[in-house]
């Protein structure tokens, strides 16, 4: 088994990043091809991952620091899909911006490689490096725009992100000091031994620091203060990327760390309780704040906090031993995938609309139905799915995760979740209602370019297909989460 095969999917993405830079620098007349090279790399990455599945090639690599299992494969496909959609949705904006074609796509691809490493990492050093590999390019991307808001967003994101990763690192240092190893499985062995329970206070401290560090990436209360600002200030394609990409990866790595390293019974009830509390607060704060927003990107920032709370119900729902242990985890995976399709679809429509009308204000979306029926319909479908109205993929994901919550005796949390869904319907469907019934500001049609249309098509096709036939997605999520049941 060669080393190249082990990192093949990331290698393909990074190779494409290098190729993109070279083409941009050496062949400026072919600059228009750059995004398609990026897409080619992502396609190659997905195919490579596909051959693993076909060969049933699941294994540990690099002395257990990377784990190529069904769980990692699930996220590899997800990240390749997310990044491809974002690349497609970025083409117009980057052309309009007219500079740094190569750099922009190279950074996007680097983020993708970092996210992939993050979902496969099984070692504290690898996790930290993968996290920074995905974060640092995101800080640059957030500050990419020419306007003042963008650089402000980039700086805010970076400063708060750096503080969060320092907290995370201290937690990792404590774990290393206590257990003498950086491998998650080694830490897990120590924690499960009698010595682990004897050092419970240190473990709880390390756990709190880890939750703070990853909570920043997951965008949960109380680590959410950057979310609305960065979502509003960053260029819209970048916002779309970080709203689904880094959130998904953060959940991926949190599940892995907490199940494999801190999964011992005496500790798991602790962090499940913490996650339950944070889930309730995140859902409530996010939804209530989203109602009063007038800027659609900011509204999505708060709604993203609320959705992170929904994800976390799955993290909290592990307290039952045995088969049920992974029900919550598979719920998180299902929710992550459903949220990725739906939110990306919504963002692509927002990119297309806001580019043409030059505004992010919700009131300017009034009457959009008359100006662009296709975009309006796509956005409306995504809103319905984000709210969780049957029979959309968002509904199946919510049903699954609420079911996991009820089976783990978290009835109170599920009730809060359902109430919050009602609140979220108010602002999601409020925007949709304005778009269908409001009076249009201008009469001119909002046209979409082929690339935007394609990415919107991909995302809404994902939403619709998995709404009608959710079973394959649920099976994939279950298979992926099952690797934690074999411990």
């Amino acid at each position, binding site marked *: 088994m060669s080393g190249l095969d082990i990192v093949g999917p990331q290698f393909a993405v990074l190779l494409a990043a290098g190729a993109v830079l070279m083409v941009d620098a050496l062949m400026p007349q072919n600059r228009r091809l750059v995004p398609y090279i990026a897409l080619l790399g992502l396609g190659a990455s997905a195919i490579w991952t596909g051959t693993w599945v076909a060969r049933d090639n699941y294994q540990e690599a690099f002395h257990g620091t990377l784990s190529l299992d069904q769980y990692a494969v699930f996220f590899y496909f997800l990240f390749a899909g997310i990044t491809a959609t974002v690349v497609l949705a970025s083409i117009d904006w980057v052309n309009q911006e007219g500079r740094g074609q190569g750099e922009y796509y190279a950074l996007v691809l680097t983020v993708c490689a970092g996210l992939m490493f993050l979902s496969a990492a099984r070692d504290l050093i690898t996790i930290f490096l993968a996290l920074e590999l995905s974060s*640092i390019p995101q800080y*640059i991307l957030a500050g990419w725009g020419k306007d003042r808001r963008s650089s402000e967003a980039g700086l805010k994101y970076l*400063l708060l992100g750096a503080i969060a990763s*320092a907290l995370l690192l201290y937690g990792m*240092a404590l774990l*290393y000091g206590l257990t003498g190893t950086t491998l998650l499985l080694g830490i897990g062995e120590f924690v499960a031994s009698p010595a682990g329970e004897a050092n419970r206070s240190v473990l709880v401290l390390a756990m709190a620091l880890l939750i703070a560090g990853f909570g920043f990436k997951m965008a949960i209360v109380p680590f959410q203060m950057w979310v609305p600002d960065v979502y509003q200030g960053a260029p819209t394609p970048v916002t779309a990327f970080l709203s689904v990409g880094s959130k998904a990866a953060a959940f991926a790595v949190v599940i892995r760390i907490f199940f494999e390293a801190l999964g011992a019974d005496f500790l798991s009830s602790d962090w499940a309780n913490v996650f339950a509390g944070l889930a309730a607060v995140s859902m409530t704060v996010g939804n209530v704040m989203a109602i009063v927003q007038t800027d659609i990107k900011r509204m999505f920032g708060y709604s993203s906090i609320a959705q992170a709370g929904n994800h976390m119900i799955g993290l909290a729902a592990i307290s039952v031993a045995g088969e049920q242990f992974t029900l919550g985890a598979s719920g998180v995976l299902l929710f992550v995938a459903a949220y990725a399709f739906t939110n990306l679809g919504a963002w692509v429509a927002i990119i297309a609309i806001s580019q043409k009308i030059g505004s992010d204000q919700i009131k300017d979306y009034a009457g959009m139905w008359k100006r662009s029926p296709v975009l309006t319909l796509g956005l409306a479908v995504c809103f319905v799915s984000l709210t969780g109205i049957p029979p959309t993929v968002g509904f199946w994901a919510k049903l699954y995760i609420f079911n996991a919550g009820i089976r783990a005796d978290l009835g109170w949390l599920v009730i809060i979740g359902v109430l919050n869904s009602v609140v979220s319907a108010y602002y999601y469907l409020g925007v949709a209602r304005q778009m269908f019934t409001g009076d249009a500001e201008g009469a001119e049609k909002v046209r979409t370019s082929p690339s935007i249309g394609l990415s919107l098509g991909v995302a809404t096709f994902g939403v619709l297909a998995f709404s009608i036939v959710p079973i394959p997605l649920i099976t994939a999520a279950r298979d992926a989460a099952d690797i934690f049941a074999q411990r």
Partner: protein
Amino acid sequence: MSALFLVTIGIENFLAVGALLFALGFAIALSKRNAIGVLMGVELMLNAVNLTLLTFSRFSPSDRPVAGATFVVFVITVAAAEAAVALALAVSVYRNRDTVDVDKINLLKS
């Protein structure tokens, strides 16, 4: 003579210094209004983590305690990369706003 000193300074002293530096860095990062000052606080936090990691590595009972030292090398590298990006963004903000005071960088408000 020097060996005697080493015996009296145990792991808990090193860890205490690390924790103190970390807390100081955190306090600086949260209280400084200049973006560069915040960044310096973060650097202090990261170096406190490095000290802690090295302490654990040095006092580890394991026969190959390299993981901690390796970790430190990576943290230093990443901190350098992060600082480079941070300074570039700070320059970009300064060009736009003529200030890097985080209280005055407040265009993004609901």
